[in-house]
C-alpha cells in the first residue's frame, strides 16, 4: 500500500484523461470511472492512515517517482525538482481528508448534477473530469515532499478551481452587477495567482538562501531545505531577516489560496460554482491547502514570520466573520465562514510559529482544525447544496425568478410551525426521532419536516463549527483558542490575537445559527405552491451528508470531549502529527552563553518582538526539552533534537504544568461562553424575533450595516484601484507602444522615405538634369552640326583639311 502510494493520485489522473478523451461513452458518462478512481484512493488512504495510526513510531516514508528537473548533469545525487512523495503523519491524515471528502462529493454530485434525470447537467462528463483532475492535483499537493512540487500542484488545483467555478460559464444574471460564474472563475484564478507570485518569489529566494548555506547542489526537498536552513542560520550564512522574508513570501501563496485578508474576495464569489465544488474545493481541501502549506513550511518559519502569519489569520478570522453577519446568500455566509475558519487555522499556525517554546501547540491545533473543519464545512456546503437543489426545484416548478440561494426566500424548511426552546434547539433536537414518539408537539414537527436529513446533518455541522462541546469543532477550536490565549498571556502585547480568536468565535456561533434559523425555522417565505414542491434530496445526496455529519462528532478526534483536560491526552492527531523541528529558530547567537539553551537563543535572535520577561518560561521549556531531548543541553537545543519531533510535544505536555493548564481551562470556559452567547443572541434575534432586532440595529447604524453588507467594499476597492488601473495601464502602454515606439520606428522609415524622396528630387532635377543637359547640349549642337553633314565626301574632307591646317598652326604656335 505504501509503495504504491502514487496510485492514489495517478488513478484520478487516468480517470481525468479517460473522461476527457472518452467523455460520454464511459460508464455513467464518466462519473463512475471518477468515483471508482477516488474510491480506490480512499481505500488506500485509509489503509495507509491506519498503518500510520497504529504504528508506535512512524518515520516519514519516501517514494521517489522520477526526476522532473535536473540541473548540473547526472552527477548530482538529487535533482533540482524531483517528483517524490512522502507519507508522514500530516500527509496521511490529509490523504484521508482529501479522498474522503472528494469521494463523498463525487457521489453527492451524481444527485446534485442530476445524473440520469431530465435535469442532468449538459457538461456532466466534463464536470467529473475536472473533479478527477482536481483530486489528482490536490493529492499530489498533499503527498509532495518537495516545495516545488507543492507549488506545481498548487497551481494545478488553482486551474481546477477555475474550471469548476466556471462550470456554468454561459450563465448570465439579469443584474449586471452580480458576478457571473465565468467572472468569478477568473477572479479566483487571478486573485490566488497574486499570492502565488509571492510563493514563487519565496521559492526562488529560498533557493538562494540554501545556496548561501550549501554552495553545492541545491534542491527543494523539504528535509534538505530544513537542514540546510538550519545549517545556514547556525553558520550565519543566512540572515534571519531573509528567512523571515522568505517565510512571509511563501505565506503569500497561502494568503491567496486560503483567501486570507486582503486576498479573500475571490472565495465568496467562487460560490458561483456548483455547490459540490464549493464543498470540495472551496471549503474542505483547496482553500485548506494554504494552511497545509504553512504547515509544510513551518520548520523554516522564524518567529517574526509567525507573528505576521498569526496577525493575518487572526484579523481575517474576525473580519470575515463580521461580513458573514450580514450576508443573505446561504453560500456566501458559508464562504465567509470558511474564510474566517481558515483565518483561525492560520492564526493558530502563526501563533505556533511565533512561539519558540512550542507550548501553544499552534501547529497541531491549526492542522487539526483543518481536518475537523474539512468534515463539517463540507457537510455544511453539501447541506446548503441540498437546500438549494430543493429550492431550485421548487422555484423552477412555479417558474419563479427568485434567487434559490437567498435565505430571505427560505424559512421553515424544517419546521414551519414554530420554534423550540433554546435548550431543545441545542440538545433535544438530536433526540427528536425518539421524542417524537412520545410528544405530539415533536411528533408534529417531525412529521411535517420538509428536509429532515438535510436539517439534521446541517445542524450537527453548525453546532460543530460553533464550538459546542461534544463536537469536533469544539476540540480543535478550543485548542486554538487555548494556544492563542496562552501566547497572549505570555506576550501581553499580542493580546489582540486572543481578541481576534474569541471575537471570531462569538460571531461564528451567531451567524451560523442565524443561517439555521433563517433557513429551517420560522414561517416559510416561499410562495405556498412553491413550498409544496420542496422535497428532501435523494439518497445519493443525503448519505454523504450523514457520513460527514457523523464525522463531526468529537469521538473521532479525541475521546475526551474537553480536548485533553480530563484525560490529559490531546488525541491521536497531536500524537501522529507532531510539530516538526524548527530550523527557523536556530539563528547563530554570538552573545549566547553555552548554557543558555534554545529559549535564550531564540529570545535573543529569532524573537526580537518577545519581551525579556519571557525568559522564565523559555527556560522552563528549554529544560523540559533538554531532559527529554537525546543530546542534552547544547547551544542549539531545538535544532539538536533533530528528528525527535515527538519529544517536543511530550516535553510540552510535561512542561505545561500549572500555568498552561490554568490558561487552558480559562480558554475553555471563555470559548464556551462566547459560543453560547453567540447562539443565544442568534436565537433571540432570528429564532424568536424573526430578525427584527437586527433590522433595527441596521437602521441605527446604517453605515456599519452597509459596510458589512458590502463586504467592507473590498471588491469595489480592488475594482477601482487594481483592476481598472491595470486595464488603464495596459491601454496606456499599448498606446505608448503604438504611439511612441512604433511611431519612432515608422518615423525612421518615413524619414528614410523623405530623405530618399529628397535625394530622388536631387537625382531627378540635378544629377539627372545634368545628364539631360549634356544630352540636350549635344542635341542642340547636333542640330547645328548635322547641317554640316551633307553626305558629300568632299565637304567632310574640307573640314578635315581645315582642322589639319588648324592643327598644324597650333603645332607651329606651340613651338
Amino acid at each position, binding site marked *: 500500500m505504501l509503495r504504491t502510494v502514487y496510485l492514489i493520485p495517478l488513478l484520478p489522473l487516468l480517470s481525468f484523461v479517460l473522461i*476527457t478523451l472518452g467523455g460520454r461513452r464511459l460508464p455513467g458518462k464518466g462519473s463512475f470511472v471518477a468515483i471508482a478512481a477516488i474510491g480506490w484512493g480512499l481505500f488506500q488512504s485509509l489503509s495507509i492512515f491506519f498503518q500510520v495510526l497504529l504504528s508506535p513510531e512512524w518515520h516519514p516514508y519516501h517514494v521517489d517517482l*522520477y*526526476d*522532473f*528537473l*535536473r*540541473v*548540473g*548533469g*547526472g552527477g548530482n545525487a538529487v*535533482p*533540482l525538482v524531483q517528483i517524490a512523495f512522502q507519507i508522514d503523519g500530516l500527509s496521511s491524515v490529509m490523504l484521508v481528508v482529501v479522498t474522503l471528502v472528494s469521494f463523498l462529493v463525487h457521489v453527492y454530485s451524481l444527485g446534485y448534477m442530476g445524473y440520469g434525470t431530465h435535469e442532468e447537467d449538459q457538461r456532466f462528463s466534463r464536470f467529473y473530469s475536472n473533479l478527477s483532475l482536481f483530486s489528482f492535483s490536490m493529492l499530489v499537493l498533499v503527498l509532495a515532499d518537495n516545495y*516545488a512540487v507543492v*507549488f*506545481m*500542484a498548487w*497551481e*494545478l488545483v488553482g*486551474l481546477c478551481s*477555475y474550471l469548476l467555478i*466556471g462550470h456554468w*460559464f*454561459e450563465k*448570465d444574471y439579469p443584474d449586471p452587477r452580480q458576478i*457571473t460564474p*465565468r*467572472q468569478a*472563475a*477568473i477572479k479566483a*484564478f*487571478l486573485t490566488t*495567482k*497574486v499570492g*502565488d*507570485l509571492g510563493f*514563487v*518569489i519565496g*521559492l*526562488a*529566494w529560498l*533557493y*538562494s538562501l540554501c*545556496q548561501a548555506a550549501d554552495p553545492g547542489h541545491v534542491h527543494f526537498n523539504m528535509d534538505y531545505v530544513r537542514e540546510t536552513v538550519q545549517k545556514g542560520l547556525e553558520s550565519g550564512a543566512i540572515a534571519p531577516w531573509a528567512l523571515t522574508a522568505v517565510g512571509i513570501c511563501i505565506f503569500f501563496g497561502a494568503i491567496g489560496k486560503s483567501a486570507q485578508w486582503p486576498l479573500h474576495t475571490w472565495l465568496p464569489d467562487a460560490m458561483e460554482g456548483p455547490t459540490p465544488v464549493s464543498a470540495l474545493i472551496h471549503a474542505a481541501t483547496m482553500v485548506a491547502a494554504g494552511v497545509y502549506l504553512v504547515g509544510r513550511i513551518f520548520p523554516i518559519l522564524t518567529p517574526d514570520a509567525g507573528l505576521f502569519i498569526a496577525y493575518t489569520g487572526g484579523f481575517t478570522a474576525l473580519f470575515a466573520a463580521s461580513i458573514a453577519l450580514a450576508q443573505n446568500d446561504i453560500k456566501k455566509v458559508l464562504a465567509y465562514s470558511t474564510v474566517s475558519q481558515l483565518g483561525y487555522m492560520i492564526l493558530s499556525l502563526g501563533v505556533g510559529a511565533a512561539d519558540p517554546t512550542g507550548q501553544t501547540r499552534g501547529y497541531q491545533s491549526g492542522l487539526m482544525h483543518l481536518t475537523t473543519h474539512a468534515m463539517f464545512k463540507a457537510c455544511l456546503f453539501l447541506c446548503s447544496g441540498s437546500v438549494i437543489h430543493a429550492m431550485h426545484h421548487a422555484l423552477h416548478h412555479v417558474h419563479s425568478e427568485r434567487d434559490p440561494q437567498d435565505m430571505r426566500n427560505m424559512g421553515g424548511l424544517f419546521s414551519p410551525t414554530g420554534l423550540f426552546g433554546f435548550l431543545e434547539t441545542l440538545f433535544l433536537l438530536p433526540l427528536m426521532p425518539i421524542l417524537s414518539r412520545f410528544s405530539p408537539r415533536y411528533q408534529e414537527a417531525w412529521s411535517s419536516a420538509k428536509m429532515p436529513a438535510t436539517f439534521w446533518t446541517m445542524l450537527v455541522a453548525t453546532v460543530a463549527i460553533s464550538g459546542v462541546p461534544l463536537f469536533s469543532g469544539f476540540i480543535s477550536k478550543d485548542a486554538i483558542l487555548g494556544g492563542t490565549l496562552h501566547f497572549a498571556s505570555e506576550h501581553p502585547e499580542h493580546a489582540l490575537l486572543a481578541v481576534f480568536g474569541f471575537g471570531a468565535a462569538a460571531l461564528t456561533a451567531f451567524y451560523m445559527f442565524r443561517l439555521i434559523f433563517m433557513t429551517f425555522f420560522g414561517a416559510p417565505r416561499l410562495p405556498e405552491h412553491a413550498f409544496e414542491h420542496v422535497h428532501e434530496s435523494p439518497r445519493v445526496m443525503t448519505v454523504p451528508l450523514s457520513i460527514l455529519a457523523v464525522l463531526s462528532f468529537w469521538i473521532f478526534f479525541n475521546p475526551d470531549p474537553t480536548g485533553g483536560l480530563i484525560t490529559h491526552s490531546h488525541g491521536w492527531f497531536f500524537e501522529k502529527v507532531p510539530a516538526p523541528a524548527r530550523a527557523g529558530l536556530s539563528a547563530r547567537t554570538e552573545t549566547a552563553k553555552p548554557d543558555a539553551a534554545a529559549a535564550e537563543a531564540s529570545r535573543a535572535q529569532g524573537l526580537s518582538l518577545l519581551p525579556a520577561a519571557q525568559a522564565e518560561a523559555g527556560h522552563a521549556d528549554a529544560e523540559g526539552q533538554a531532559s527529554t531531548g537525546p543530546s542534552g543541553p547544547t547551544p542549539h537545543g531545538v535544532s539538536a533534537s533533530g528528528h525527535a519531533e515527538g519529544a517536543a510535544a511530550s516535553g510540552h505536555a510535561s512542561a505545561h504544568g500549572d500555568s498552561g493548564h490554568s490558561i487552558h481551562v480559562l480558554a475553555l470556559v471563555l470559548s464556551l461562553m462566547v459560543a453560547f452567547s453567540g447562539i443565544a443572541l442568534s436565537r433571540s434575534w432570528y429564532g424568536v424575533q424573526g430578525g427584527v432586532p437586527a433590522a433595527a440595529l441596521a437602521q441605527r447604524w446604517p453605515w456599519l450595516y452597509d459596510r458589512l453588507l458590502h463586504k467592507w467594499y473590498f471588491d469595489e476597492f480592488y475594482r477601482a484601484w487594481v483592476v481598472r488601473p*491595470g*486595464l488603464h*495601464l*495596459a*491601454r496606456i*502602454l*499599448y*498606446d505608448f*507602444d*503604438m504611439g511612441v*515606439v*512604433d511611431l*519612432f*520606428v*515608422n518615423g525612421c*522609415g518615413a524619414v528614410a522615405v523623405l530623405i530618399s524622396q529628397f535625394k530622388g528630387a536631387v537625382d531627378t532635377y540635378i544629377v539627372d538634369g545634368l545628364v539631360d543637359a549634356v544630352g540636350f547640349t549635344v542635341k542642340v549642337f547636333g542640330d547645328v552640326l548635322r547641317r554640316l553633314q551633307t553626305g558629300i565626301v568632299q565637304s567632310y574632307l574640307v573640314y578635315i583639311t581645315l582642322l589639319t591646317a588648324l592643327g598644324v598652326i597650333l603645332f607651329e604656335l606651340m613651338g
Partner: protein
Amino acid sequence: MVNFPYLSFMTFTPVFGALFLLLIPKENARGIRTAAAFFTLLTLVISLFAWRAYDLTLDPAAHPVQLVEGKAYDPQAPDAERLSAGSAWIPAFHIYYFVGVDGLSLPLLLLTALISTVAVIASFNIENRVKEYFFFMLLLEAGMMGVFSALDFFLFYVFWEVMLVPMYFLIGVWGGPKKEFAAIKFFLYTLFGSVFMLVAMLALYFWSGHPDRGIPHTFNLLELKRQAGGFNPAFQLVVYWALFLGFAIKVPIFPFHTWLPLAHVEAPTAVSIILAAVLLKMGVYGFLRISFPILPLATQQYATVLLVLGFINVVYGAFCAMAQSDMKKLVAYSSINHMGYCLLGMASLSAIGLNGAIFEMLGHGFVTGSLFLLVGVVYDRAHHRDIDGFGGLGVRVPKYAGLMTLACMASLGLPGLCGFVGEFLCLLGAFNPNRILGNDATFKVFTALSVIGILVTAGFFLWMIQRVFLGKLNPKYAELPDLDGRETVAAIPLAVMTVLAGVFPWFLLKVMDPASQALVTHIVSHAQQVSTSGGDVVSWLR
C-alpha cells in the same frame, strides 16, 4: 569519424523538396501539398534520427559539438588542424562548411522540423499560388535549419539572410490587408539588425587569429569562442552591441519589437506559427551561440542590461497584450512577454537560467505555435479575430476550446505544461544569478518585479478565454464547425509536446544541460581570468 551527414540532410532536404516542387505542374495543388508535406516530414524523421544519434555520454569538453560533417573540431588539436574543422567552402577566407550541434541547437533543430511540418499541414488550405507558397515554405525551413546547425559565422550569416527572403514573400504575398507594409517593415527591420551583425562578424574575423604567427583569421564559432580571452574589453563592448542590435531585433527585445505584432497579424497562419515558434528563437540562439561564448567580458558586463530589458519585455509585453482585441496581436504580444523570460534566464548567466532560457524557447515554440494555429483556425471560419466578436464558443466547439485552453494555460505557465518549466527555471535562475555578476540585489529586485508579468499574462489569457469561449453562445456562430481532421492532425503534435515537455522536462533538459553548464563554465573562467590578472571588468568603463 565520419557520420551520416544528418545536418546536411536536414538542411538540404527542404531545398531539394523546393526544387522538386518546381517540377510539379501548377495546377496539381494536391500533389504540391503532398510533396511539401512529405519533404518536411522527411526532414522531421531525419532530425529524429539525429536526436537518436546524438551521444549524451560524450564529454562536452572534448566534444563541444557532435554530428559534425567533414573534419570535427577538436579543442586540443594543433592550430591548423583545429581551424580547418568542417569542409572548406571558401578557402581563401578560411570559410568552412562547418555544421554541428550541441545541446543548445539540437532541440531547436527538432523544434524547427516539427513546427515546419505542422506549418505545412496547417497551410493546406492555401489556394492562391500554391506552388510558390510551398516553395518558399521549404526554402524557409532550409534557412532555419541552416542557422541552427551552422558553426561557421559566415555560414550562419548566409543562412540567416536566406531566411529573410522567403519570409518576406510569404508575408507580402499571402498576408492580410496590410501585408506589403508588414513584409517590408519586417524585412527592413531585420536587415537593419543584420547589417550590424555583419560588421561584428567581420570585426571578429579580423581580430581573430595571428596571421603573423601562421594562425589565420577565422569564422569558426568554436575557435572564436576558444580565442575569447584574446579580445580586449573595449573591442568586446563594440562587437557586443553590434551583435546585440542584430539579435535584439529578432528576439525581439523592447524597444525593437514593434515589427512583431504587425508581422504576426498580417502573416498567414502557418507563417505566424513559424515566425513565433522558430524565428523568434534565433535572436536568443544568437546570443547564446555567438555573443555569450565569444564575448564573455561584455556578456558579464551587460548582463544587468539584459535583465532590465527582460523585465521590461515581460511586464510591458504582458500589459500590451492585455489591451488587445485582436487574438493574433494578443498572442504576438504574449510572445514578447515570453521572450522576456528567456532574457531573464540568460541574463543570470547561471546554469539554471540558461537551461530555463533554452527550455522557454522550446516551450514557447510548442505553445505559441499551437496558439497561432488555433487562432488561424477560427479566423478561417469566422473571418475575423476580434475577441469581443465571439462569445460562448465553448459550447459549440469543445475540441477547439479544449486545445485552445490547453495552449493558453501552457502559455501562462501552468505546471504540468511546458510553459511552466521554462518560466520557473528562468525566474529561479534570474533570482540567483551567477556570482561573477556581483549585483545580486538588482537581479532579485527585477526578477521579483517581473512576476507581475505572470499575473498579467494569466489575466489576459483568461480574459480572452472568457470572451471567446464562455458566456452565451453568439447566435452568429451557432453553426461553427469544430476542428476538422487536418487541423486536428496539425494541432495534436504540438499539444502532445506541450504536455510531454511539461510533465517530463528532463528528456529535453538532459540534452541542454551539458551545453548550458559548459557555457557557464566558459564565461566564468574568462571572467575569473580578468579578476585574477588584476583588471577590473568594470573599471575600464568608468
